[in-house]
């Protein structure tokens, strides 16, 4: 009994040390603007680039398809950590030696660039699956009305595809939140970096526990949201009124396709 109590006391002293918690919390909260900056910028650029890549991948021009395919394969296969180190340190060395100063990036721009380029590859796959899940008849109907390919995409296919990809994109976003912690290796002063620093100072891992709580506080609601959206989508497609014949079958078929095609957050990597 006594040893159990001792064990509990030791656990509390090392992982939930109240004194250190009180010191760490304000320290970590102060890093949140940097985390949000990384998140918002990386999300924005990766979605935009991902959408462009997905359209290129579905283009009728072979060069575009080839480029987008190669890009997606490369960045899906490349460790994000390596991407970060290369963009921050690798480019800086080249920049310093060659006089191309623009290659020397600050920590935050480097982190945003790496996160965006890698996540663009993931988003591109999600967008592509979403666009492909829209029945071919939609594009044909739009084209038959005289709309160009671009107009048909913009006004008919993409608005429907976006709705479908929101749940998987939410999963991407959750993964991105967690992966901002990788930016600590290029000394971006975000959550993990600051927690590790504090851990060194107090020689106690409690700051890591605090950082873990902060991450989880942000990710768990999003995880719940993502699964709620997914359930809603399933319900939505089942609730469609059958409209007779093959046309009535379309919604159900489409959603089955999507379920099979769309990468769900964890599955992609």
């Amino acid at each position, binding site marked *: 009994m006594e040893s159990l109590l001792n064990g509990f006391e030791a656990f509390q002293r090392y992982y939930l040390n109240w004194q250190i918690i009180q010191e760490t919390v304000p320290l970590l909260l102060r890093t949140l603007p940097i985390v949000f900056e990384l998140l918002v910028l990386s999300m924005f650029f990766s979605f935009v680039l991902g959408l462009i890549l997905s359209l290129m991948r579905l283009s009728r021009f072979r060069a575009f398809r080839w480029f987008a395919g190669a890009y997606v394969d490369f960045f899906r296969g490349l460790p994000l950590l390596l991407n970060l180190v290369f963009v921050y340190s690798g480019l800086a060395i080249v920049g310093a030696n060659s006089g191309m100063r623009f290659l020397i990036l600050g920590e935050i721009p480097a982190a945003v660039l790496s996160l965006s380029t890698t996540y663009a590859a993931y988003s591109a796959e999600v967008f592509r699956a979403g666009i492909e899940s829209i*029945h071919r*008849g*939609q594009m*044909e*109907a*739009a*084209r*038959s*009305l*005289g*709309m*160009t390919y671009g*107009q048909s995409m913009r*006004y*008919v296919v993409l*608005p*429907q595809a976006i*709705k479908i990809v929101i749940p998987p994109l939410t999963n991407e976003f959750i993964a991105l939140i967690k992966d901002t912690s990788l930016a600590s290796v290029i000394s971006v002063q975000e959550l993990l970096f600051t927690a590790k620093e504090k851990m060194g100072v107090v020689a106690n891992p409690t700051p890591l526990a605090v950082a873990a709580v902060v991450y989880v506080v942000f990710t768990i609601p999003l995880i719940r949201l993502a699964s709620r959206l997914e359930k809603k989508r399933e319900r939505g497609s089942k609730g*469609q*009124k059958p*409209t*007779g*014949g*093959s*046309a*009535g079958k*379309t*919604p159900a078929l489409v959603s089955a396709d999507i379920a099979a095609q769309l990468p769900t957050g964890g599955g992609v990597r």
Partner: protein
Amino acid sequence: MSDPTTMIELHDVHKSYGHLEVLRGIDLQITKSEVVVVIGPSGSGKSTMLRCINALEPIQRGKIIIEGTDLTDSKTNVNQVRQKIGMVFQSFNLFPHKTALENVMLAPLKVKKQSRGEVEKIARDLLVTVGLSDKADNHPDQLSGGQQQRVAIARALAMQPDMMLFDEVTSALDPELVAEVLNVMKDLALAGMTMVVVTHEMGFAREVGTRMIFMDEGVIVEEADPREMIANPREERTQKFLGMVL
């Protein structure tokens, strides 16, 4: 080609998917206000022919000329030609994220760049024409198949096309909903619209059609007045097919 009333011309049209030749030399001329009914067994190439007329499918050989414009010419702006051709599909293909009214308005707004007020008036009038003025604000999933198909017809008409293509538009409908769609098509025909109708509805063909075409295995087997063909098919293949559907 010189005849200004010629709307659609097909000259020796060949179309294949890989090794499968779906159209094997189609020659056809359709003049203004004709209602051409196309019948034939499934896989005979009827729908493919319709889709080629609208350039939804590329052809491998031959020529398709729409109101004097050669569709197969690489300099032709296909989008412009398509504006003159309305098409209605078996599976409706309404835009599910838009209301009935928005479905009808989209193309005139974006393609013809007409003003919103003008387009809305045209669209509401068309919904009245197809008997759906009370469904303007409903989304497609709130409409029956017959209602959806009538919206699809209104959507095609909103571009004020010179001709309309109907691709088995009643095949996906429950039997009791077929008549409401055929009636709209009948009114259109009476108003002088040039129409090409792929269908199995022999009653409609007999009543509204001005010409009937029987296709089989990628060629036009027989061509005649609908009443004449239904009563006295000349070709053996036509007799056999009509024997099965009538």
